[in-house]
């Protein structure tokens, strides 16, 4: 067992903590910093419940070791909007009842927020028509694009048919 010190900026607050080199970013957040907004569904990159923004990009935080991200900035679903407020994506999820148990939901929402930025930046997905999005143009997010780009976040309550219109509403704004 080897302990190392790392710095993490989480939802706007700086933390310095000592972690086991085996500790994932997810466990550092949940077990060490008490931020349980990202969830643990599988602990090996297959469900997306642990999705956070790590230095601005969506990642499965269960697959990232804390020791490898010294100095990183992390945003969880709890940090998307100031305390007590909702990010517009979160409001869309509530309006469309895009969840039931809520356990996949923080991950879905962080993922959706990042995904809109990816599409706006012109990143193609597996269902993007050839040529679209290249050359800096934004990808238009139709339902199939949303479904494809949100498929890294499993929802066993199967709220998918509500998640798609929730995200589509945000994409139209």
């Amino acid at each position, binding site marked *: *067992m080897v302990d190392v010190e790392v710095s993490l900026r989480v939802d706007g607050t700086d933390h310095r903590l000592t972690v*086991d080199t*085996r*500790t994932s970013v997810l*466990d550092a957040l*949940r*077990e060490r910093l*008490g931020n*349980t*907004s*990202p*969830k*643990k*569904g*599988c*602990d*090996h990159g*297959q*469900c997306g*419940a642990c999705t956070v923004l790590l230095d601005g990009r969506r990642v499965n935080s269960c697959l990232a070791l804390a020791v490898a991200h010294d100095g990183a900035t992390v945003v*969880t*679903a*709890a940090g*998307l*909007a100031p305390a007590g407020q*909702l990010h517009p994506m*979160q409001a869309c*999820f*509530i*309006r469309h*009842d895009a*969840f*039931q*148990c*809520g*356990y*996949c*939901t*923080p991950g879905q*929402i962080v993922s959706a927020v990042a995904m809109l930025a990816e599409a706006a930046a012109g990143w193609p997905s597996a269902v993007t028509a050839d040529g679209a999005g290249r050359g800096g143009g934004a990808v238009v997010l139709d339902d199939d694009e*949303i*479904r*494809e780009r*949100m*498929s890294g*976040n*499993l*929802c*066993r*309550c*199967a*709220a*998918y*048919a*509500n*998640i*798609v219109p929730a995200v589509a509403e945000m994409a139209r704004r």
Partner: protein
Amino acid sequence: MTITPRAMGVAVDRFDGAAKVRGEARYAYEQPVDRPLYLYPLTAAVATGRIADIDCGAASAEPGVVAVLTYRNATRTAAIEDGELRILQSDEVAFRGQFIGGVVAETSEIARHAVSLVRVDYEERPHDVELREGRGDLRVPREVQPIFPMDTAEGDVDAALASAPVRVDQTYTTAWNNHNPIEPHTTIATWTGDRFTFYLSTQGVNGIQAAVAALFELGPDRVRVISPYVGGAFGSKARPHADVVLAALAARLVPDRPVKFALTRQQMFSQVGYRPPTVQRVRLGADAGGRLVALAHESIEPTSKLQEFAEHSTRATPTMYAAPNRRTRQRLAALDVPTPTIMRAPGEASGMFALESAMDEMAIACGLDPIEFRIRNDAQRHPHFGLPFSSRNLVACLREGARRFGWDGRDPTPGIRRTAGWLVGTGVAAATYPVLRLPGSMATIRVGPDERYTVLIAAADIGTGTWTALSQVAADALGVRVEQIDLRIGDTAYPKASNEGGSSGITSWGSAICEAADRLRDELARHGGAVPADGLEVTAAMPENPHISRYAMHAFGAQFAEVRVHAEIGEVRVRRQLGVFAVGRVVNPKTARSQLLGGMTMGLSMALHEQSVFDPRFAQVVTQDLATYHIASNADVGAVEVHWIDEDDPYVNPMGTKGVGEIGIVGAAAAIANAVHHATGVRVRDLPITLDKLLPAA
């Protein structure tokens, strides 16, 4: 008596929505506790046998390890009947993966590593895991719900089949399915002085309390179970499983320190039950006019040697169709496998895949439209009980669904619609689920002079929307605004509640709340209609329903699906699903729709994806993760439409509700299989419908 809907029927956003979308609703494992320890389990590496030796030396010596738990130092628990819970009581191993110990350490990383240092030697015995019709030891299971007998018989099925002009005789199989809620089973267990406190992810805090109290021979008042939010369950969190016992045994070794225990996704495949695979034979006989004269449905399934569980796959059959000669038969084989359990619509989900596939085959054999064929055979009275239905709107669901789906003018010829390399087809199936009420719920209502009503009941919200819907029920029961209700659930400190299971939650808990509201009204009247300065409090139990012996109570539905099957590679895509349900009153149209939608999508997942592949050589599921056990992802799901018909049923309970948690999955897989047949001409009778089964079509 029936309550007047004011709050009920209004589509309200989930009360716990804001907490959930920010991730601030704290699930069991996330409850703040002081100086926690972490438990990682040691699991059996043989299918059956005994532990010859365990060497814990290296694990115990690891810095940060606080205790190593084995059968040698575990608390002796009482010899309760449920063998699944009797872990660490001897050197015996009952199935591969069974808990045989664990390490408790200061961090989860240390605990997990230290478990790998424990050396176990086994004496292995041969295992018996084969499910087949010819086994000499198949047995009739005990009833799951007392009113539904495991075997039923009416008339002379064999003679009627022999003389029927049109016959179907087919065998259908369903796969081993695992619930896989996204929140794994999690526990924080603390043993302090002479009592346990648990934070736990469960469908029923009182069931956990009773099991722990029995095992450790404690009064129930010495076991507190708290479960405010549950990250999905679908049946796996209904009964207590061995994970709770392991956490409790660990907590006994380290008094005053909370022990945190979360199953890994891999362990979820052997520890918390599963929907057992079924082999079902359905025989139908019809006359020349398309009327059923005989109906026989038989199912065999595995259970474990530790504890019996039966997926009552034939349960719905005597409810569905009028056939003068009927027979249902359930048989179980007890094997060296983990114990199966209830999973969303236990019985109906599997059984209605078989029956509704067979009905489609029979409609085709009779040359009838499958909707018309079902309508012709609709039952007016319950075929088995002989009782009238409290309400039965199967035909209305089929007709309404046909209209909305655009069924009219459908050409029944299979395999002839092709667009851009895809074969297109549509299918229909019926759905049903009984209106169940589970015994034992009580509710307390307190009111203060400020006219705020606190409603206490140890009910659960597993994502179903209980927090919201039960508040709506309470508001109407009391005749007040929903904003005046302060609902408290998920804690054994509140009056006892039945499990959230079998779509019985609103029926059972709501009936108790209505009864308490009646009493409160009486109390108020005694106080001249004004709340006294120190408030009022009443407690009431769920009353008997006098109509139960006079009516058969069931929800019905119709499921439609449109599929495309790739003509060359056999890939199946479900472009749309449409369901119409007759489920009595809908308390919260928003959350109820989500439940039905979730059920239909889980039905799609059952139809196309889900199969825990069991390797008989090693007696274990080998697909122990979410990559190899695929559940429907966003991209697998097309358009899903959910509708219900207005149904006013004054007999089921004071709310007029029938439950919506299960019926969404019932028949969904059959509708998809029937659509696949319509698209390709290939009848797939074995779930899941994977590409290989369709290759001959391509």
